[in-house]
């Protein structure tokens, strides 16, 4: 019997050792498991056409404000608040320059209107990825003319990271020539921002929104 006892003890020890070895092995495999393959989005800039000596270039495809309108669903820079409200019936209001709030972050007379992302319609058309409910679009006017559209993607419980949504939207504006629109994608606080600005806005192009109260 002692032999059996010993044998039983050895058996339990072997089982324990085997279990331990198994756990170590699983942990080892997990540690050594290759990272999952992920896709990196490539943003396509407008093609340039060079002469045969590689000295001068033009955009391979000439672009006009219509190219911007096709992506925004009808909005182009230079529209007045009244014209914007006619093109965005979901706003449910007639915009007037004199009634718009002032955007204090600018040194010039810039005014704005904001629209919840859910009701932005064609303005957020390319986006299929998730974004939080507080996300919104801001239309900014300089001296009465639309000069910037700014999408602010925010997280919420259902969508803790709206990065993919911002990237999707940004990808549809990068192919526009800088003669038509300047686009930028950046992060401030919890917000992923995509700004598309009128090329003639000069110093305002580089001015980026900063989220307060982070």
């Amino acid at each position, binding site marked *: 019997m002692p032999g059996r006892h010993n044998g039983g003890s050895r058996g339990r020890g072997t089982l324990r050792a085997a279990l331990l070895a198994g756990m170590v092995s699983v942990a080892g495999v997990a540690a050594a498991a290759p990272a999952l393959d*992920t896709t990196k989005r490539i943003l396509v800039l407008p093609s*340039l056409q060079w002469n045969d000596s590689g000295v001068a270039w033009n955009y391979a495809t000439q672009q006009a404000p219509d190219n911007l309108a096709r992506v925004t669903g009808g909005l182009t820079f230079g529209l007045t608040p009244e014209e914007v409200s006619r093109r965005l019936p979901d706003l449910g209001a007639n915009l007037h320059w004199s009634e718009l709030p002032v955007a204090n972050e600018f040194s010039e007379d810039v005014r704005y209107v904001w629209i919840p992302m859910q009701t932005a319609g064609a303005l957020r058309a390319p986006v299929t990825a998730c974004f939080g409910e507080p996300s919104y679009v801001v239309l900014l006017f300089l001296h009465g003319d639309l000069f910037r559209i700014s999408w602010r993607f925010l997280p919420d419980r259902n969508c803790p990271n709206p990065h993919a949504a911002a990237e999707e939207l940004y990808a549809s504006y*990068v192919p526009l020539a800088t003669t038509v629109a300047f686009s930028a994608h950046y992060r401030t606080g919890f917000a992923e921002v995509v700004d598309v600005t009128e090329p003639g806005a000069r110093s305002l192009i580089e001015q980026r929104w900063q989220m307060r109260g982070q």
Partner: protein
Amino acid sequence: MRTWLRLAVLGLPLLASTAGRGSPLDFDLGNYDASQALEDTAQPRDCTVTYLVEDFVTNETFAARMQFTPAPHAIALKGHLPCPTFVPPRVTEAALEGCREHADKKADCVFADMSRGFHESPLLSDTSENAARCASDQASQIAIACRNAGNFDVCNVGCGEDRDAAILAARNRCQAKHRTACPITGALPVRAP
């Protein structure tokens, strides 16, 4: 008779030249069908050199396609017009400029083919311009393969005849250079659609 003979001798070259111009050439059409004729007469496409440039702060990759007007006597090979053997610095600079127009700071933009020490010193000088581009007379696809180095991706570029081959080339280059797996990949055609 003599006058007739003289006229006949004088008229012979005239007759011969008329025959040369007017007689139909004897074409053996054989299996030379319409589709082949179209293929053979199709305009060869201009050279495109595509760069991949990276804003390493936002982790965004940009493709800058440069199309070249062919030299007057350029000869196409298999439907591809040759690309310049030497890419002028202005072209390279324009590729970077495409990224810089979207970046917060100019220094954020580098070529997407990075050297081993890039994650420690993320500088343009630690990237390769030559290896960050593919030319349409050599490859159809350009790809990127990266590993995440914490705050940003460290990447390399590959060229290939199809998407898989280009990704494999980029991944092999990335894994050899950085001695680790490069699971983040992307690809696109060298030429604009």
